């Protein structure tokens, strides 16, 4: 959409629409709702990572006073279409979704739901769980993806056959999928290279770490209509999953969004909701379910651990000849690791004549992974950006110049075969070259500076919103697009400029699935990007309808006007040929009440936009205490191409928040396992960085407009998590000369790496003396 006036709100640091209610504690999150007669539900979870469930006896629990219902897998309707798939970012088929929701004949991870209870108080529900008797037959545990791939590994699923491009295998396997993509001749690439580096890397299972645990209230009313209040990234996504799981048509199933207290990809699947509905249906009363922190760690969907080997070759002048990666990702108990994200992102910022990625999606006895901010990309970039730094060092080249020489641009090809439209890799690297951080020399012992890039393809899917004009001329945006990052504010800013109205004339409401048009989930950095296009269409429709009203009102008996005769700008309609004939927006809006031609509702929908590929880079300075291995971040700057900034404080907030999570991956966070049992399901021992562990995170935004969409917007949520771990690893290498290839780089791992290096140097010195 073109506007005649410069933007008044787009690009401005408008405070968040929901800031006040958040900071005053009045925002209503998933656990805040109370309904009359409401029961409380709790879940019985498997203590075993892998076990057959031979028998469940709930009779003693049901006999406890206050217990109103118990449900198990038996209470789900039978499966019809196993091939139906759901999920948005990480897909899962219906059969697996059912088994993930509640264990059928087998518990596949510690914390897998086995039964659920509804009672008059949470305490009674908890006491009832202890009265449910489950006979387990404990099975050997498949602890990690490498073990899972061994030919003699115990199988999780008897009917899981590896999907490849080749023919269907004869035996089931824990390898769900093998993906191979690429182009060019790698043998030639290695032969043409002056230096080839190959290195293997490992990352751990980590959690999104959202503050708000999963929570919902479900109520099956007397007519069988289902109402679900829940904290979710996508109401329609949740509705479709629930409809398929419970065999209920969509019109009987209303999903009402609560405010979301952090999600980062982890609140896409329904998880408590199906159990709460089954319990409510049995008990005839609303049922509330809220997870505790240990359940959040054990039983929601964390991020996939990965084993990645990267091989990269370059000529002496720094030109890459070839890039190769083997990516093995651990999906947890059911297929669906983010191999696609990892594959697209691993070499995305670079061009090379030959590239290939082989990726494995593998099941193990861990919680089924879910999306976590740029799913797959953070692990991928840790491997590729570390390897490229090693290669630059071997070539004696500056890490920034080396990356610039190989930077991908419009027309270059991603390893997946996608040809890039306009992208911002070079613009980001040029911005770094000019930035004071890059140009300030780092001095002092045990200090080092690291650089890494990150990428995210940018999700698209389908988005819609409605723009409704009230009879007093004020405007409402009615949408099902859940706000997890401040998108209500950016949508208000865009609509205010698109309609050329003051911002305070516009409000926005995120509504339930019964009252808003279908829109896909808020995930994958797609919301502001796709909504910019949907809202542009809705606003175009509104202005066209308003012009028709104005034409009608301004017509005279001798001259009928058509909408084409009307001009609109800044809240005023006038006749093109006679600018004195003016009607203000408010008056036109008022006409609709009595003329039978209103109300004015513009619906905008978009699907399949051209992707707005997103890139970022981070620069960090660290100091390592060689006696303890502790890494202190001295300075940190995040760079990102935002396409066009709608709200700079929100973009900076995303960049800083993403950087913090990247630092968490890099230095602190991991699931500590002991034969499939989680040893650190608390925020004490699962260490997220605190405010004191973090530096000030400086930001530098570049704007290379996206090739599609009316404003050039690119998504901004995902890319800032991606480069952090690699930037830290590269900085640590330059500080103390040790190359860490396993996340997280905890003090202890850094300490032992330094000891090993010292020992090697000592041995070398001794050998040297001897010679």
């Amino acid at each position: 959409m073109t506007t005649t006036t410069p933007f008044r709100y787009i690009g401005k640091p408008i405070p968040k629409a929901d800031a006040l209610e958040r900071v005053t504690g009045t925002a209503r999150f998933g656990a805040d709702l109370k309904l009359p007669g409401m029961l409380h539900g709790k879940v019985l979870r498997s203590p075993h990572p892998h076990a057959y469930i031979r028998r469940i006896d709930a009779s003693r629990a049901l006999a406890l006073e206050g217990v109103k219902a118990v449900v198990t897998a038996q209470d789900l309707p039978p499966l019809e279409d196993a091939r139906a798939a759901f999920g948005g970012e990480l897909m899962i088929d219906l059969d697996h979704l059912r088994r993930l929701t509640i264990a059928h004949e087998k518990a596949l991870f510690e914390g897998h739901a086995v039964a659920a209870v509804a009672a008059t108080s949470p305490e009674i529900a908890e006491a009832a769980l202890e009265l449910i008797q489950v006979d387990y037959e404990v099975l050997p545990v498949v602890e990690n993806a490498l073990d899972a791939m061994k030919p003699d590994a115990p199988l999780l699923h008897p009917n899981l056959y590896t999907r490849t491009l080749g023919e269907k295998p004869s035996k089931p396997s824990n390898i769900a999928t093998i993906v191979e993509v690429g182009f060019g001749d790698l043998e030639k690439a290695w032969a043409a290279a002056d230096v080839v580096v190959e290195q293997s890397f490992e990352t751990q299972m980590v959690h999104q770490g959202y503050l708000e645990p999963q929570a919902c209230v479900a109520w099956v009313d007397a007519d069988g209509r289902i109402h679900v209040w829940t904290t979710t990234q996508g109401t329609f996504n949740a509705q479709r999953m629930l409809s398929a799981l419970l065999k209920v048509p969509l019109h009987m199933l209303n999903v009402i969004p609560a405010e979301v207290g952090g999600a980062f990809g982890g609140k896409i699947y329904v998880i408590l909701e199906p159990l709460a509905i089954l319990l409510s249906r049995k008990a005839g009363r609303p049922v509330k379910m809220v997870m505790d922190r240990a359940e959040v760690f054990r039983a929601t969907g964390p991020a996939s651990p990965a084993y990645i080997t990267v091989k990269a070759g370059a000529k002496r002048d720094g030109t890459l000849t070839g890039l190769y990666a083997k990516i093995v990702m651990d999906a947890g108990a059911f297929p669906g690791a983010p191999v696609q994200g990892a594959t697209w992102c691993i070499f995305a910022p670079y061009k090379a004549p030959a590239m290939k990625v082989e990726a494995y999606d593998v099941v193990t006895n861990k919680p089924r992974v879910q999306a976590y901010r740029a799913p797959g990309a953070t692990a991928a970039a840790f491997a590729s950006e570390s390897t490229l730094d090693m290669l630059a060092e071997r070539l004696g080249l500056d890490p920034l110049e080396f990356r610039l020489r190989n930077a991908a641009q419009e027309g270059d090809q991603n390893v997946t075969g996608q040809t890039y439209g306009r992208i911002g890799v070079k613009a980001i690297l040029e911005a770094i070259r000019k930035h004071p951080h890059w140009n300030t020399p780092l001095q002092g012992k045990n200090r080092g500076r690291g650089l890494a890039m990150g990428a995210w393809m940018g999700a698209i899917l389908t988005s819609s919103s409605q723009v409704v004009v009230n009879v007093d001329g004020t405007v409402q945006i009615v949408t099902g697009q859940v706000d997890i990052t401040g998108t209500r504010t950016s949508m208000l800013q865009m609509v205010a400029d698109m309609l050329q109205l003051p911002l305070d004339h516009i409000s926005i409401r995120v509504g339930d699935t019964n009252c808003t048009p279908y829109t896909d989930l808020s995930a994958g950095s797609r919301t502001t990007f796709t909504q910019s296009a949907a809202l542009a269409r809705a606003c175009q429709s509104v202005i066209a309808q308003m012009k028709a009203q104005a034409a009608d009102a301004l017509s005279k008996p001798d001259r009928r006007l058509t909408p084409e005769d009307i001009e609109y700008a800044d809240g005023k309609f006038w006749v093109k040929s006679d600018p004195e004939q003016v009607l203000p927006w408010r008056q036109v809006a008022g006409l609709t009440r009595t003329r039978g031609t209103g109300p004015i509702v513009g619906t905008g929908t978009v699907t399949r936009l051209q992707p707005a590929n997103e890139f970022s880079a981070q620069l960090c300075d660290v100091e390592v205490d060689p006696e303890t291995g502790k890494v202190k971040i001295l300075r940190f700057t995040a760079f990102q191409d935002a396409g066009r900034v709608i709200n700079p404080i929100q973009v900076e907030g995303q960049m800083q928040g993403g950087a913090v999570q990247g630092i968490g991956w890099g230095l602190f966070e991991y699931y500590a396992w002991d034969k499939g049992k989680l040893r650190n399901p608390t925020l004490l021992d699962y260490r997220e960085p605190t405010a004191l562990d973090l530096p000030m995170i400086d930001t530098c935004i570049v704007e290379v407009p996206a090739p599609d969409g009316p404003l050039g917007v690119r998504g901004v949520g995902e890319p800032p998590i991606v480069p952090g771990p690699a930037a830290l690893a590269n900085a640590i290498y330059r500080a103390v000369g040790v190359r860490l290839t396993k996340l997280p780089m905890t003090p202890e791992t850094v300490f032992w790496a330094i000891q090993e290096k010292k020992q090697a140097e000592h041995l070398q010195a001794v050998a040297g003396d001897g010679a």
Partner: protein
Amino acid sequence: MRPFEYVAPKRLREAYAILAQADGRTVRPLAGGTDLIDQLRVGRKRADLVMDVKHIPELMRLEWGPRKGLYIGAGVPCYRVYKDPVVAQHYPAIRDGAMLVGSWQIQHRASLGGNICNAAPSADTVPPLLVYEAIAHIGGPRGEREVPLERFFTGPGQTVLAPDEILLGVRVPPPPPRSSSHYLRFIPREEMDIAVAGVASLVALDSRGVVARARIALSAVAPTPVRARDAEAVLEGQRPTPALLVEAGEKAVLATNPITDVRGSIAYRKELVKVLTRRTLSKALADLGITLE
């Protein structure tokens, strides 16, 4: 969380009466509650009766006299200890330890007495008290007694307290002349964490600059907080040198008996004890005007 009864006696006599009449019920004293409430919530401890001791004046005393030394009532929260100028002046390690417990919010509730009675091997306030040879002051319906704090702990979470006894406070003798002390703990984060290893060191010098007394105590490297007597012996009677501090660090390891867990391995904990011993000693010596690092 299972329901429990709550009482808040205003006098020590009342508290003793409650303990005497427990009649088989589990009575748990509560000061700040920052450990107890969480342990009750997750089911690690149970309580029939929770007795809040914060209203008993004797347990809220924080007193100092140059001859008597320091008395810290069992209910005194950490912030009162580390904000007290007397503590900062005479017992720097005790201040260090109190400042490390939990977060600011927690420090306004959590007490040293609670930290002691919780008897975690990693308790940050305990090694600083051990280097001053603090004494636990215990009371109950059967009378009062005193036990050296070093002998108060019998294992992880275990103390010499009988079910009808409570800790009333700790007596800390006056500091030796020309002495200083420090406590350092190592955690991967900067706050809100449990020590992987912690070391408190006290050094007193005589008029010639020779170490007249050295006390070193360790946390999180044995089933209870421990003194490192071999390291102390290395220092006493010697003039401090960098090499001597390194040696003391190595000797301190002899007092450890650590475990490998999610917070750190045995070998790493031992390495940390060496480093922290040296660093606390050199910090204390720096206070006394001797710079070695």
